[in-house]
């Protein structure tokens, strides 16, 4: 196994008045594996934490929590996973001490930097404007003592040739190059120390389609020639479809689904993956799409349980509806569509986490009817478990949310959605 991450989390502190009181949960409990010589895609929208995962994997950022094992034999990894399942701390530590990237000091890390490198999205800011291309490409070789200065110079020229640039470019400065050419230089730098793993962070999103195709083909060629493992981080699903074998789908800091590319893209299981796939405009196809309402959530206070539930078109009872979410929709309905039934003077408020009080009406019957009628459209109403009456108000009780896990599907992929929980409230895969 090239790299395997378990329970990777990265929280960024938010500055408050005195010290950080809250944190942005950019990556939360992410697991990810890349086999030797394999290309794995990590897809997600902006702000989903996919770039943070890439940076944490090679310790450009120190994760808040989790474990990253690098270049570990499969047998040892199996051992590790067994120990992990059994929570055998000692055995865990024994293996992790040898393969964990997070347990390395920065001096121990330096030789390992030869084996993994990264290519960034913006080719304009990823090359130092005040360095010659030859120096830019040589930097990793010299910093990791991969070879001598003289050899690095020769190899830099070879690498320029390898990525399809003329050798005399070695004396140029980045601003003399076009975006595509810069990205080629960034790739040359990344592969200069013959790494086994390459993190590609949106390698083509700043480029035009015609140039993007050139870069994709270059990457594919290099991968086939040298057998580099790659993690391809991108928001463009078509790019993943072109290069990767496996794909992870990320949303709001969590992995939602992962599996074989063909299966995930052709037949997505998770509601988010489905919506994502249907959002991608495809040439020459007019389709009916699931348009997600709203925007990705605020990760300082993420939604309860499943982070996708507020936008999920099939979210159900236990997906994580909070009292606030239900109140907002209920209020809107009572004051708008059901104004005729309830009139003025109805006031909805939360009472604790799981209870809602509707002041001004004791007509539980009508409210239950309303909930039953609207809950297919307005999913938050699904969270309502029971409607009670007191002397002067109506009490609404909500279901307890259940945190989804990664549930293995029959065809080898895993989906983080309660629909696939065996023995769930609802039969698996309703749609």
């Amino acid at each position, binding site marked *: 196994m090239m790299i395997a991450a378990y329970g990777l989390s990265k929280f960024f502190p938010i500055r408050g008045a005195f010290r950080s009181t809250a944190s942005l949960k950019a990556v939360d409990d992410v697991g990810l594996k890349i086999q030797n010589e394999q290309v794995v895609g990590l897809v997600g929208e902006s702000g989903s934490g996919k770039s943070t995962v890439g940076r944490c994997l*090679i310790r450009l950022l120190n994760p808040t929590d989790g474990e990253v094992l690098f270049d570990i034999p499969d047998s040892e990894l199996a051992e590790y996973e067994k120990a992990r399942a059994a929570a055998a701390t000692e055995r865990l530590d024994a293996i992790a001490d040898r393969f964990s990237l997070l347990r390395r000091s920065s001096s121990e890390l330096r030789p390992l930097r030869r084996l993994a490198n*990264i290519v*960034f999205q913006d080719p304009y800011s990823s090359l130092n404007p005040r360095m010659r291309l030859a120096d830019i490409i040589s930097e990793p070789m010299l910093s990791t003592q991969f070879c001598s200065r003289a050899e690095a110079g020769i190899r830099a020229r070879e690498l320029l040739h390898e990525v399809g640039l003329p050798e005399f470019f070695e004396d140029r400065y980045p601003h003399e190059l076009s975006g595509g050419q810069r990205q080629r230089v960034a790739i040359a730098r990344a592969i200069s120390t013959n790494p086994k793993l390459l993190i590609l962070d949106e390698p083509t999103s700043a480029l035009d389609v015609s140039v993007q195709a050139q870069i994709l083909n270059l990457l594919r060629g290099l991968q086939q020639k040298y057998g580099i493992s790659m993690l391809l981080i991108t928001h463009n699903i078509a790019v993943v479809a072109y290069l990767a074998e496996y794909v992870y789908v990320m949303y709001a800091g969590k992995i939602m689904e992962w599996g074989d590319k063909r299966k995930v893209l052709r037949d997505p299981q998770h509601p988010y993956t489905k919506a994502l796939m249907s959002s991608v405009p495809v040439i020459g196809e007019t389709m009916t799409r699931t348009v997600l309402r709203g925007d990705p959530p605020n990760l300082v206070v993420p939604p309860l349980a499943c982070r996708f539930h507020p936008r999920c078109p099939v979210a159900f009872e236990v997906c994580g509806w909070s009292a606030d979410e239900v109140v907002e929709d209920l209020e809107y309905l009572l004051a708008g569509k059901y104004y005729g039934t309830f009139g003025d003077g109805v006031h909805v408020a939360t009472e604790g986490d799981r209870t809602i009080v509707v002041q001004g009406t004791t007509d539980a019957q009508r409210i239950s009817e309303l909930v039953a009628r609207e809950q297919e459209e307005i999913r938050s109403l699904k969270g309502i478990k029971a409607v009670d009456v007191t002397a002067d108000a109506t009490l609404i009780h909500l279901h307890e949310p259940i945190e989804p896990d990664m549930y293995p599907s029959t065809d080898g992929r895993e989906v983080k959605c309660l629909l696939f929980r065996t023995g769930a409230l609802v039969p698996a895969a309703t749609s």
Partner: protein
Amino acid sequence: MATVTESKARFDELRLSGKVFLSNKTAVVGLAIFLVFIGDAFLVQVAPGVLGVQYPDSVVPPQFTQTNPECVGTAPEAPSFNHLFGTIQYGLSGIGCLDLLQLVMKAIRIDVAISFFIVLVGAAIGTVVGVVSGYFGRWLDEAMMRVTDVFFSVPFLILALAVGFVIGRTLVNMALALIIIWWPLYARYGRSLTLSTKEATFIESARAAGSGRLKIIFRHIMPNVLPPVLVQISLDVGTVILIFSTLAFIGFLPSNALVPELGAIASIGLDFVALGDWWPVIIPGAVITMFSLAVNLMGDGLRDVIDPRRRS
């Protein structure tokens, strides 16, 4: 073939920089005036005789009791063909009359040299502190920010007075006092430049490549921080000379120190204002203005050169 296009590209960049600077007419004028000042300072240092300057380090000849035969009467003379800038009397008793042009020529050397000295030393200290604290961040950065906050919390002229009051009123101490108030400016500026450079992913690339902190600071951050700092230096020389001469004018330099400094000369001229003589104050002031203006205009042109928006 390759090398030809290569050097041509390099040359084009330089030529473009020149073109951007030259297209700013006022900057060119500034440069010309600046060169006149530098030339004067240089000549006074190397060969004062060429300009007819004697005793470049003192306002008056050493034996200043000796009456100057050129002087007629005790009143300062207004600018005339003989004395382009007019004359002033040193001491109201009419002990000696001094040609203001000569005095100004002497003073320019001191003013230009000291303001460059102040800004360069201040910038060197400040930039290093700023880059280091900006790069390492955390408590070091907090501490640096709080320290500079304190220096910023006193109006600089008053801080300079207080420092001078304590360490003594000499020319060198005046420069020291100004360095003390000047470095925090560069610490802030260097810090903010470092922070924005740190944002660029090439720093992250360097870390991914295994480069150490020192290498990142010297190979990646410094080369990107220095050009704007240099422009700032060129602009600040114009500001420092203003504060410097103002301090001297207030009386930072005791009048018996006899330092030929433009502000100090203007304050000698102060004695004649009651008589209705304007030139002893206005001319040294105007010379300071000329220099400051020249430097500001030039700095403006330099800023255009490094501004990518102006280049396109």
